[in-house]
């Protein structure tokens, strides 16, 4: 069933802050096998001009995608999540995410389309720190594949 176009532009309330921990960044860097010391060694991060260890570029997706859950699980929108695949992903960074950040995400539905029976949903997640400064924006395109003929 095609999604309701009137949801375009809808913004959801900002999420409760996610506190970025050094050890969570380390765990993520190890999981992707990335040994860049800026992720694990505060002194190496400082040598690059950062106040603490920074997170790999895609780390923030765990935070924005959780926030997008508000959209995905919105019963009024009625997305069939069991048929959803991740289409596109993009980030623009104002500054890197770093340990100690308390990040809040505001999710907005940017586009709702229907193509060849597939529902396509573009969600923007604007990430701000505790002082309200913009850190990163994530765009996530989700595609709910058309249901097979019964």
């Amino acid at each position: 069933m095609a999604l309701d176009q009137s949801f375009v532009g809808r913004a959801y309330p900002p999420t409760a802050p996610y506190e970025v921990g050094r050890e969570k960044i380390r765990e993520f860097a190890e999981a992707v096998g990335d040994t860049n010391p800026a992720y694990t060694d505060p002194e190496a991060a400082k040598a690059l001009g950062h106040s603490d260890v920074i997170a790999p570029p895609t780390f923030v997706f765990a935070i924005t995608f959780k926030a997008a859950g508000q959209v995905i699980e919105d019963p009024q929108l009625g997305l069939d999540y069991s048929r959803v695949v991740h289409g596109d992903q993009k980030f623009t960074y104002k500054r890197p995410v770093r340990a100690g950040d308390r990040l809040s995400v505001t999710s907005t539905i940017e586009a709702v389309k229907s193509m060849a029976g597939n529902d396509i949903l573009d969600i923007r997640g604007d990430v701000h720190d505790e002082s309200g400064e913009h850190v990163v924006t994530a765009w996530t395109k989700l595609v709910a594949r058309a249901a097979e003929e019964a």
Partner: protein
Amino acid sequence: MAAKISYADVEVGTELPAQSFPVTRATLVRYAGASGDFNPIHWNEKFATEVGLPNVIAHGMFTMAEAIRVVTDWVGDPAAVVEYGVRFTKPVIVPNDDKGALIEVSAKVAVLLEDNRVRVDLTAMSAGQKVLGMSRAVVQLA
């Protein structure tokens, strides 16, 4: 921000050192835990095949995380990446053996931008298939 590559030293077509990233079932379990994405298509073969996939597939975000390492290893400071986007075109299929799959990533400077920035275009292949499309990063050089 402290990029170790200077804008003056690159041109359109400059190739970044290519890298290959192995991925096994164990890699995916570890990434699931670190990222919080526990979708069973990334670790449960029975579930994956029941929903029509050929086998367990890697998280798209895992592939995205690996691909950008070609850029961050080149430039030194990961904060030099000011924009990064991909399209997930084909899944990385990860068999349950000791080899798993291989993600091969190459990249080159595609466009010289203002303010010492460049656009780098990435190519990510696995088992002969292009697994990322429109894979581009904007990088702040020194």
